[in-house]
C-alpha cells in the first residue's frame, strides 16, 4: 500500500456500523466532503456492530487496497484482529467514537501502543458526558431517572451508563437528604418504533419517573421515545436528555419535549480521517510507544436559539468548508487536536 500513495490518489476505508442511519449518514456526508476537498477516495463498509463483521470489514477494506482505515468498532477486543490485519498489510488505522481502555483491555492497549500502523483514536469523554447530563437533570429537580439504551453490552453505552451512575453518586453525596435514583436500563434498539415501544414500556412500568435519558442509538431511538412521551400526554412532564440531535430539536426544546441535548459528534470521524490521511502522506510519524488521541467535545444545546445556530452551521451546511478542510489537512497533530477541541457553534461562527 505504501508505494501506491505516491503514485495514485490515496484510498481511505471507513468501517462503520451503518452509513445510512441518521448519525451514519451525517458522518458519511462529512467524510465525503473532506475526501472531495483533499482529492482522496473513500470506501465504506457497513458492519452493523456485529463483532465478526467488524473484523471482517477491516479485511475487506485491506483486500480492496486501501491505504488507511478509520473504524468504529463495537468491542475493544475486536481491535486485536483489526490492528493485526493493519500491521500485516501495512495499512494505517484509527478509531473513531471509540478508544481502547488501558485498564479494562490492557492487552489490546499494548498492541495498539506498539503498532506502527495504529495511528490513534478520536473519541468523546463518555463518562464525563454522562455525569454532565445527570447533573443537568438533577439540577432541574428530577429525582427518578429512567434510562433507555440501544444495544446491550455496547462499549459506548457501558461508558455512558457508568457516567450516569457516577453522576447520581456525586449528586447523592452532595445532597444526602434529597437523593436521586437511576433505574436499570432497558434497550430500545436503533429504530424509532422499537424506541417508542420500549419508552412506553418503561413509562407504563414506572409512571412516577420524572426524567428519561435516551442514551444514543443514532437518534432514531430518541425520536421514538419522544413520540411515546407525547402520546402518553406527558410531554413537558418528563424531562428528556440525550446524546443525539434531533430534527425538530428547536421545537422540542421550546415546548419542553427535551430538556437538554449533547451531540454534534458526527465531526469526530473527520479528525480520525485527517490523522490517517497525514499518516499515509508521511506527515505524522506513528509512534511505536504510543498513539495519537483526541478527546472530542460534545456540543451541549439547551435552548432553541442554541439549536437554531447549530442547525445553521452544522446541519444546513457543514461546519468546515473546502478551504478549511484543506487547511486542516496540513495541520500538525497538535494543531489538529486543538482544532477538534475548539469545535463549537461559536467556533464555526468565528470562522464564517
Amino acid at each position, binding site marked *: 500500500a505504501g508505494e501506491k500513495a505516491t503514485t495514485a490518489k490515496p484510498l481511505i476505508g471507513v468501517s462503520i456500523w*451503518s*452509513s*445510512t*442511519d*441518521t448519525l451514519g*449518514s451525517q458522518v458519511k456526508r462529512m467524510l465525503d466532503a473532506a475526501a472531495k476537498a483533499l482529492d482522496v477516495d473513500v470506501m465504506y463498509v*457497513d*458492519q*452493523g456492530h456485529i463483532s465478526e*463483521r467488524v473484523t471482517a470489514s477491516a479485511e475487506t477494506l485491506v483486500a480492496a487496497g486501501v491505504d488507511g482505515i478509520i473504524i468504529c468498532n463495537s468491542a475493544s477486543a475486536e481491535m486485536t484482529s483489526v490492528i493485526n490485519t493493519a500491521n500485516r498489510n501495512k495499512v494505517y488505522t484509527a478509531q473513531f467514537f471509540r478508544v481502547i481502555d488501558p485498564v479494562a483491555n490492557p492487552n489490546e492497549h499494548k498492541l495498539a501502543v506498539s503498532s506502527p500502523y495504529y495511528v490513534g483514536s478520536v473519541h468523546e469523554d463518555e463518562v464525563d458526558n454522562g455525569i454532565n447530563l445527570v447533573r443537568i437533570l438533577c439540577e432541574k429537580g428530577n429525582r427518578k431517572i429512567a434510562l433507555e439504551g440501544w444495544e*446491550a453490552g455496547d462499549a459506548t453505552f457501558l461508558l455512558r451508563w457508568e457516567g450516569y451512575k457516577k453522576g447520581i453518586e456525586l449528586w447523592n453525596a452532595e445532597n444526602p437528604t434529597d437523593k436521586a435514583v437511576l*433505574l*436499570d*436500563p*432497558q*434497550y*430500545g434498539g*436503533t*429504530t*424509532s*418504533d*422499537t*424506541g*417508542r*415501544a*420500549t419508552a*412506553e*414500556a*418503561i413509562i*407504563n*412500568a*414506572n*409512571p412516577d419517573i420524572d426524567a428519561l435519558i435516551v442514551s444514543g442509538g*443514532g*437518534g*432514531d431511538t430518541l*425520536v*421514538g421515545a*419522544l*413520540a411515546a412521551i407525547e*402520546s*402518553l400526554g406527558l410531554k413537558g412532564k418528563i424531562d428528556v436528555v440525550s446524546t443525539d440531535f*434531533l*430534527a*425538530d430539536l428547536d*421545537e422540542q426544546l421550546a415546548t419542553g419535549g427535551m430538556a437538554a441535548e449533547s451531540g454534534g459528534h458526527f465531526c469526530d470521524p473527520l479528525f480520525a480521517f485527517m490523522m490517517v490521511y497525514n499518516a499515509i502522506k508521511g506527515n505524522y510519524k506513528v509512534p511505536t510507544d504510543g498513539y495519537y488521541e483526541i478527546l472530542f467535545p460534545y456540543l451541549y444545546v439547551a435552548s432553541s436559539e442554541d439549536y437554531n445556530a447549530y*442547525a445553521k452551521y452544522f*446541519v*444546513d451546511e457543514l461546519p468546515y468548508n473546502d478551504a478549511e478542510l484543506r487547511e486542516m489537512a496540513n495541520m500538525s497533530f497538535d494543531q489538529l487536536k486543538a482544532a477538534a477541541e475548539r469545535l463549537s457553534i461559536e467556533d464555526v461562527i468565528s470562522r464564517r
Partner: protein
Amino acid sequence: MNETISKFKRSKYFGYALLFGLALFFWAFFKILSPHNFGTSKLMANYLQTSIQYAVGGCGFYFIVVMGLFDMSIGANIVLSSLVGVLLSRQFGYYGLILGCLLCGTLIGSFNGFLYTRLRIPSMIVTVGLMLVLESVAAYVVKLDPAGFPGKLTDPNILAFNHAPWNYIVAVSAFLLMGFILRFTKLGTYFNAIGSNEFVAKSMGINVEKYKFIGFVLLHFFVGIMALLTVSYGRGMLAVTGMESMGRNFKPLMGTFFGVAFKKYGMPVSAIVIGEFIITLIFNGLVALNVPTTINDFVTGAVLLIIVTLTNRGARGSVVK
C-alpha cells in the same frame, strides 16, 4: 355429553377461550408479581396500541403462509414503503404519506409475486434476494429526502396515525378487510385449498399461479398499511442495510403463527390480533418487573414455541419438513 365436549373443543368458542385464557394467564402472572405498574386498564390500552401494527403485518403474512410460502422481504418493504411515504408527504401531506406507503407496498408485492411466479424460484430464496435489493433501494430513497433529518416525520400536522383514534381506525379497517377477504371472497378459500393440496386445487380448476401472485400482492398491501402505522408510530424510519431489516419480519410472523395455530378454530384474524397483544403484554410485564429487555427475546421465543407445540403439532408419522 362427551360428544358435546369434543364438539366444543373444536369450536370457535374454545379457540377464544384458549386465547383469552392465555392472555389472562400472562396478565395475572405479571399482575401478581407487579401489582402497581402493570396491567391496569389504561396500560392495557397502551399495550394494545403498540401491538396492532404488528398484527396488521401478521394478517398480511397469513395469506401466503397458509399457502406454504414465505417472504423474507417484509422488513425491507416496511422500510422502503415508509421512506417513500415520508418522501411524498413532504409534498403532498397525508395523501403522499398514505398513498406512498400503500402503493409502494403493493407495488413491491406485485414485483415479488411476479418474480416468484415467473422465475419459479422458491419464495424463501427469491425474497432473500429481493430483501437485499429493497434495503439498498431504501438507502437511495432516503437520500432523495430534502429534510435535514431524512426519513423522519417532523411535521406535527401529519401524525394522526401516531395515536388513537386514527391508528385504531386504520388497523381495525385492515383486520376487517382481512376478515372480509377470508370470509367473503373466494381468496381465503383458494389460499387454504392451495395450501392443503396444490395438485387437487389445480384439478378443481383453480389458477394456482394467479392466486399465489395475488397472495403476494395482498401480503405487501398489508405490509404497506403496517408501514404507515410503523412510520407514524415511531415518527420516522431508518434506512438499514446489511440484512438488518430482517429483524422486522419476525414480530408480524409471530402473530401469523398464532393465526395458523388457531386456524382450526376458524378465527385466524382474532388469533393474530390477540396473539400480538399477548406478546406485547409479556414484553411490558418483563419491563414492569425490571427484567432487562434483553431477556425478552428469550421469553418471546419460549412462549411461541410452547404455543406452537400445543396447537400446531403434526400427527405421528406425518411428513413435516
